[in-house]
């Protein structure tokens, strides 16, 4: 008998069908991946197992844990199972912990409640599990609060909470999506080891085929609440029998065709550089220790110099917190450098007033990561897309604005019917298109894109990458692409700069740097980056 057996599970919330006839099983000590794009029902499957569905949910079918049907279990019974027999790791380590409680209290809570352990005993076990997940007490005392830990450390605490009682089933819902690649690799290793040690079953929910190919024994691919394909992970992902599996796999290693044809192969460009950054440094004041005393300042960007030629696409890669975004903000003149100079089209941007910056801003726009957060939810698309027109010398009339907005939307593949709608009426991919339309409406020569595709599903990501490549080819827009995803860097950029602790430690042509990294930081990134092809090759080799 399997540890977890889901049979013919159907779920609807209100009148909306979410899952239909889902079958899935997890054996002891096995890692089963549940893969699909957003809205496919992955998380809802997990919540069904936990019985944490919203009130309007109706389920049919069976969810058996050790032969007992959880769909018929009472809430009381579920309370004893959750945290004890079934553990769960959530995506967002920032919000999964209570900011008012120490990490020790949060881990011990479950132990005391389920195991009826004494305070001292629970503390002892807390110490052991935190040590196990890589937070030894000597460096991370139980009295630490979540805000004193980094994202990766917090996710370790979440895993410690989920695994403290050695549950038989662990559900991890996109456990590494919010982490950079190096942390991701560490957390995945930890999960793998914990599964092996305790013979847990792990249901790993992910949208990332490369991660899954590396981790999972078996895989189930969901789409619109239905199982498309399931089977042995490496087999399914390499043979790709089902057209949807093929589509997903191709999308996740997608390289825009235009780029493949017209890649720049030299570092030198005959043209004068569009953007020159010289010895740029940014310090943030240290934390206030008392009324008059401050701690030492933090150096976010440290003596960075580089240039971008017109029409070039440059990737800025590095781990989270390495100073990528601070650098981008200074380039966009949204943040003032402590020292150094930025020259754009031959003019200096440093120390200029907002009015003097207007002409430069026209030629320099930005696309953000989060297609949800980058729009004012209270304005219509026409107003949002035309916002940069504020930068024009002569303010266009209402009708002109509408025409320009419609033209910009057409450029990114959206119809004029989008003009009078609000951002929440669009999907993530559409929103990112709108965001790009806003960036190109003034016909800029440089677009700074801060993780523009990392919040998107793989197939949408492929389309947006195509769009970026197309705009680069047609309009000659240069890009500064900030990303932690090397697949994206490889797909769309000519050059790569690798940042570490505020410094650019390596720079070169994209394929040269990524195929043969020289610096420690670049090597670390490349080896940690999940890669579908490599992972599959390794798995198939292991299996013979």
């Amino acid at each position, binding site marked *: 008998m399997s540890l977890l057996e889901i049979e013919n599970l159907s779920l609807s919330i209100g009148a909306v069908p979410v899952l239909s006839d889902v079958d899935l099983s997890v054996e002891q000590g096995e890692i089963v991946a549940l893969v699909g794009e957003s809205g496919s029902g992955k998380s809802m499957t997990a919540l069904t197992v936990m019985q944490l569905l919203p009130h309007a949910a109706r389920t049919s079918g069976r969810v058996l844990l050790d032969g007992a049907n959880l769909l018929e279990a009472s809430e009381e019974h579920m309370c004893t199972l959750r945290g004890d027999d079934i553990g769960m790791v959530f995506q967002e380590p920032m919000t999964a912990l209570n900011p008012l409680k120490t990490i020790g209290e949060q881990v011990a809570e479950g132990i005391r409640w389920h195991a009826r352990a004494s305070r001292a005993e629970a503390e002892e076990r807390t110490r052991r599990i935190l040590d196990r997940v890589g937070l030894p007490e000597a460096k991370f005392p139980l009295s630490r609060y979540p805000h004193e830990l980094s994202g990766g450390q917090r996710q370790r605490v979440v895993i410690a909470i989920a695994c403290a009682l050695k549950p038989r089933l662990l559900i991890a819902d996109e456990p590494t999506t919010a982490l950079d690649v190096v942390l991701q690799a560490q957390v995945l290793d930890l999960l793998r080891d914990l599964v092996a040690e305790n013979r847990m079953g792990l249901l790993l929910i992910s949208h990332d085929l490369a991660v899954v190919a590396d981790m999972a024994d078996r895989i189930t691919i969901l789409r619109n609440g239905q199982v498309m394909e399931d089977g042995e992970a490496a087999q399914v992902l390499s043979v790709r029998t089902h057209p949807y599996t093929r589509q997903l796999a191709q999308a996740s290693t997608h390289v825009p065709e235009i780029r493949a044809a017209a890649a720049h192969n030299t570092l030198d460009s005959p043209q004068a550089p569009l953007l020159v950054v010289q010895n740029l440094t940014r310090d943030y004041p240290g934390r206030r220790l008392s009324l008059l005393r401050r701690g030492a300042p933090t150096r976010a960007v440290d003596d960075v110099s580089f240039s971008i030629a017109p029409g070039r696409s440059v990737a800025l890669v590095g781990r989270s917190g390495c100073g990528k975004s601070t650098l981008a903000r200074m380039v966009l003149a*949204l943040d003032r450098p402590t020292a150094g100079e930025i020259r754009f089209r031959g003019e200096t941007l440093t120390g200029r007033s907002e009015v003097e910056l207007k002409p430069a801003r026209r030629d320099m*726009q*930005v696309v953000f990561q989060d297609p949800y957060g*980058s*729009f004012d*939810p*209270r*304005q219509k698309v026409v107003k949002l897309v035309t916002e940069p027109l504020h*930068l024009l010398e002569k303010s266009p009339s209402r009708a002109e604005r509408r025409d320009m907005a419609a033209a910009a939307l057409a450029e990114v593949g959206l119809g004029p019917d989008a003009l009078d709608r609000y951002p929440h009426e669009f999907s993530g991919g559409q929103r990112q298109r709108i965001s790009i339309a806003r960036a190109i409406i003034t016909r800029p020569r440089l677009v700074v894109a801060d993780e523009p595709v990392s919040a998107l599903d793989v197939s949408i990501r492929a389309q947006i990458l195509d769009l970026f490549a197309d705009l680069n080819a047609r309009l000659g827009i240069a890009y500064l692409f900030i990303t932690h995803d090397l697949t994206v860097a490889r797909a769309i950029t000519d050059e790569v700069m690798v940042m570490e602790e505020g410094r650019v430690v390596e720079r070169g042509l994209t394929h040269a740097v990524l195929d043969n990294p020289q610096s420690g930081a670049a090597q670390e990134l490349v080896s940690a980056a999940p890669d579908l092809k490599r992972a599959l090759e390794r798995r198939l080799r292991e299996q013979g």
Partner: protein
Amino acid sequence: MKALANRSLLAGCLITALVALMALASFLWTPYDVTKLVVADRTQAPSLIHWFGTDHFGRDIASMIMVGARNSIAVALVAVGIGMGIGVPLGLFAAARGGLLDEALMRLNDLVFAFPALLSAIMITAIFGPGAINAIIAIGIFNVPVFARVARAGALSVWPREFILAARAAGKGQTLITVEHILPNIANQLLVQGTIQFALGILAEAGLSYLGLGAQPPMPSWGRMLFDAQTRMTIAPWMALFPGMAIVITVLGLNLLGDGIADLLDPKSRRRR
């Protein structure tokens, strides 16, 4: 038409309009003269002659509620207006600038906040003499730090969002961003706070009137009526019941109105209805 489809907005509009109409009507006609004392008819229970009964001076409570509406609503509305008019720009300014200026403004705010409204009202009336106008000013000043805080807190949560960064990349200055992006996004909170402060304004006016610092007799006000009723709760409960209900219904109407407007401003809920 969208506005009519929104039920709470409709109900709020109706109730508020009704109360306003009642206050306006009192200028032209009331069932009885509220300035005339008929001691023989004192503390009569509600009947067909006196719908809501009479008070301890024999005045008709229904008429007093009509006339009192003028005073209570005017005081509370103007006080909210003063609070919003000064407090909101102050809070938005503090949030936009940040740093020392923000700190200074907010500490000044705390100073006003720490001063009880009643105390400042006594101070003001001690200088300028008692009366409805001075009560309004006193309550209005008390409202300023409330709105400044709500506006600042709301604005601070909007400022770090990416669409603000996008607006800055589009070359927009602090003032323009505040007007175009910040204010619409915190309008909800401000409206809700507005209805709360309105209710508190009515109560504050009642308190001031009780101390003789608000509306001067014979001018009736809801608050005054309540306080008069206080000691006669057991013998004439209607004296407290009807002015109390008038306050409850007015505040309810304004709350519904505030909610309705908030929904109307939110494109997400607009689509749902």
